[in-house]
């Protein structure tokens, strides 16, 4: 079995960011869970901050400059995706949504996805369910049931607290690893694969 390719989309805007911290925890846990299932993995992190200008440009012009096109290609080819955003003004960071808006609508179809978010207070935790999960549903991604929200306080929690952050990370990672392990490696047709012959276009 080939290595599973995991692409992490991290949309924190500061550096360092707690969003990236959560993203790294999730990626590490997913790699461990895959290893426990006998599957090696490659992790690539896409920092949306570094592509922010290109995301805006593509929103306005319709084409992706090379670094963004490269990140998009990696996402489309990924066997699993970890997507993490800060919560701003009771929704995902605008740049995270913009990054998804310029993604090909078929790029994540069927791809197992683990959703994560960070925020100042646990009162925002349902943003993942009402504002972020529906976006991935629209993209036909296979989002795992457990999403992971990390509030500021979570970073100071005891590991043995009930449903602590490490617990939730592990549980979500196991769900993602199960799905990745259960499906064949992602293969997507290119733009020029499967264009119908003109006789078929005429007949249709």
């Amino acid at each position, binding site marked *: 079995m080939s290595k599973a390719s995991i692409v992490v989309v991290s949309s924190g805007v500061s550096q360092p960011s707690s969003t990236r911290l959560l993203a790294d925890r999730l990626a590490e846990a997913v790699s461990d869970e895959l290893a426990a299932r006998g599957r090696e993995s490659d992790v690539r992190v896409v920092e949306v901050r570094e592509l922010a200008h290109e995301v*805006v*440009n593509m*929103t*306005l*012009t*319709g*084409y992706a*400059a*090379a670094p963004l096109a490269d990140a998009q290609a990696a996402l489309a080819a990924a066997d699993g995706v970890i997507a993490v955003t800060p919560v701003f003004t009771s929704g995902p960071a605008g740049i995270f949504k913009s990054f998804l808006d310029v993604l090909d609508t078929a790029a994540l179809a069927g791809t197992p996805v683990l959703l994560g978010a960070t925020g100042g207070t646990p009162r925002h935790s349902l943003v993942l369910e009402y504002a972020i999960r529906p976006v991935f549903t629209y993209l036909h991604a296979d989002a795992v049931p457990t999403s992971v929200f990390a509030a500021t306080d979570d970073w100071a929690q005891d590991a043995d607290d009930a449903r602590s952050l490490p617990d939730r990370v592990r549980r979500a990672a196991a769900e993602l690893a199960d799905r990745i392990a259960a499906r064949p490696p992602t293969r997507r047709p290119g*733009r*020029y694969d499967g*264009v*119908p*012959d*003109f006789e078929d*276009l*005429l007949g*249709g």
Partner: protein
Amino acid sequence: MQFGIFSVGDVTTDPTTGRTPDDTERVRNILTIAEHADAAGLDVFATGEHHNPPFVPSSPTTMLGYLAGRTQHITLSTATTLITTNDPVRLAEEYAMLQVISDGRMDLMMGRGNTGPVYPWFGRDIRQGIPLAIENYALLRRLWTEDVVDWSGKFRTPLQGFTSTPRPLDGVPPFVWHGSIRSPEIAEQAAYYGDGFLHNAIFWPMEHTAAMVSFYRERFEHHGHGRADQAIVGLGGQVFMRPRSQDAWREFLPYFHEAPVYGHGPSMEEFTRETPLTVGSPQQVIDRYGAFWEQVGHYQRQLFLMDHAGLPLKTVLEQIDILATEVVPVLRREAELRRPAGVPANPPTHAEMVAAARAAGQVHTQAVAAADHWTGRAAEDDVEAADAVTVRT
């Protein structure tokens, strides 16, 4: 190799003066630009077709018919003709009329149009864009190549015993291009018919253009029209030139920032790096455009967008002069020197298509003389006349 200009026909405020031409002035400017391009020795003038402000060219054949009478050598074309929302019967009639009036000094380019509301305004569904382009063009070709057409399809009222007039000049329809930026189905359509394919890459990176053209070339060969490198390819382009590149850069920058489509988006540094937009000296344009063949093979037509973003008429005419005197002669000579054997230098002219059709024994030269069963003096007469025809057939 042909070099020309194409106009989108946008009415845009000149950001350096705050002045906005009205529609009448803009239309007249486009006519002046086309006549100037002819006098300067460019090969092609193509007009867009739009049905919403800030664009004025809604009626291409009226404009091109006038220009046919006013110009001497330039090939008149479109960029593009909306094959989705126009009635293919009207397209067959209008462009055959233009072909006759211009004595074959024209061709046209099919496009689907990228303005969503135009579809419902003309009674169409944008989600049917590709099927409309395919069915309408299939009918258009039959109307040009068959004298009497019986037809029924999904999108238009059926036709019984319909003859499109005037019949094409010398019995040979105009040369047709198909333009598409991202739909391989349209490249496949162009390849199937052996028509030309123009990739208007002005807002896109060249790798994308190269992939699309390569797909068209492969399919052209697959459908039996010749070798892949013999397919007829055109590219869109965009330049602004001054003798000193820093002058060009300084003068064009405010127009770049306000231009429709890319204004307020990427920086001019990014956009000139990623797309064919070249702002600089004529030599820089020669260097850049003289190298595109490396990515798409020898191609037959290069069009430039020159009159847009609020550039004043005087500037546009100067740009045409620089293009025609300093850039095109060099690019034309270089293209001819490296053109591979058997690859056409240019898209086919009317005379060449007539010669080819005659050689293949495919030209019908006799007129379609038919009794007029249809015309009445009043609407009621038409009903009787139609009934009469129905009874007879």
